[in-house]
């Protein structure tokens, strides 16, 4: 722990060394990406997508996750967006929850009982997210931004990003609002800037090597709120979808690289 702090301080004292450190960390990120368990999560997700479940004993294969019923290629890159059948803007996990209820007849309570898993037992949402995201590799990020409800959600997301609250008076922007900031050895992307948002939205959801867990965007928002000492956001709520849309819209145009592998 102390070693990391000393390393960070010593690297900052010498700008050239800091640049070398950045390069080496990029090399680390590249090497772990080349040999990542992510594909195994996609495999399991595919099996779950095709598995008949719930009282109706139906699979999710006819679910519309943004590109039409049962269409997976490129669908993740089109999220979040407005869906006519629910008259609301939805992200991937929100949409999956909807299909679990309508197609499979499962209750919201049952389907959300364990949305975030762990290294020994990932959750259904995590496996499905990995699979569906993987099907959008190469597609340009193009969330919905034109429909009136999409515009509303985008504006809400932007407001939430800058809204300071909670016992520490933090907002997302407290950490992600300025260029060139870092926490320990990690660069903090300034997420309201397209240049920083693009590589981020192109590599989530992601496998986290530090805890061997697959993490989704609903988890990411949830955990950021925890770190800001704010109340836990409700899974698939309007607020979480709005924030996801704000991030995806800020990063739009970037070719999606598939589920990422991160520290």
């Amino acid at each position, binding site marked *: 722990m102390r070693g990391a702090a000393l390393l960070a301080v010593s690297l900052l004292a010498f700008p050239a060394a800091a640049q070398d450190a950045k390069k080496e960390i990029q090399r680390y990120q590249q090497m772990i990406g080349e*040999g*990542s*368990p992510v*594909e*195994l999560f996609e*495999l*399991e997700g595919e099996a779950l997508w095709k598995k008949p479940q719930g009282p109706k004993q139906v699979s999710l294969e006819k679910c519309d996750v943004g590109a039409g019923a049962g269409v997976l290629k490129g669908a993740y890159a089109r999220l979040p967006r407005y869906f006519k059948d629910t008259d609301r803007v939805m992200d991937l996990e929100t949409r999956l929850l909807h299909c679990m209820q309508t197609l499979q007849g499962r209750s919201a309570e049952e389907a959300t009982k364990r949305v975030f898993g762990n*290294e*020994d037992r990932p959750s259904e949402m995590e496996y499905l997210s990995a699979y569906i995201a993987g099907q959008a590799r190469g597609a340009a990020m193009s969330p919905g931004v034109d429909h009136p409800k999409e515009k509303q959600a985008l504006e809400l997301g932007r407001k939430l990003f800058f809204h300071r609250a909670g016992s520490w008076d933090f907002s997302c922007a407290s950490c992600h609002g300025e260029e060139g900031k870092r926490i320990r050895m990690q660069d903090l992307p300034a997420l309201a800037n397209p240049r920083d948002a693009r590589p981020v939205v192109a590599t989530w959801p992601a496998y986290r*090597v530090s805890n*061997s867990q697959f993490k989704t965007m609903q988890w990411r928002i949830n955990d950021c709120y925890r770190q800001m000492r704010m109340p836990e956001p409700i899974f698939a709520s309007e607020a979480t979808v709005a924030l996801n849309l704000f991030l995806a819209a800020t990063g739009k145009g970037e070719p999606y690289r598939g589920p990422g592998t991160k520290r």
Partner: protein
Amino acid sequence: MAGPMKMRATLAGGYTDVRVLMTHPMETGQRKDAEGKALPLHFIQNLTVKVNGKTVMEGQISQAVSRNPVFFFRLRGGAKGDKIEVSWLDNRGETNKTETAIA
């Protein structure tokens, strides 16, 4: 029951690139559960790589290999259709294997 395993074998210049993904906790015996009890050692000890039934590489590894191990190997030469098999055996006697043909 062992988690999923996946392998990809592709011809490169004069050799075959093999990448194999494995699901395994690779528990070191140092981690503790919620009650403070150490989780027991559970890790892959042996790896075997075979080409068309013949063993070409044998690995012995420790609990220091990362969870959900990923290995890259290189086979001498190789031709489309050659059958590659990678298997593992852990300290509890559990095993898993995967096969693929060179693409």
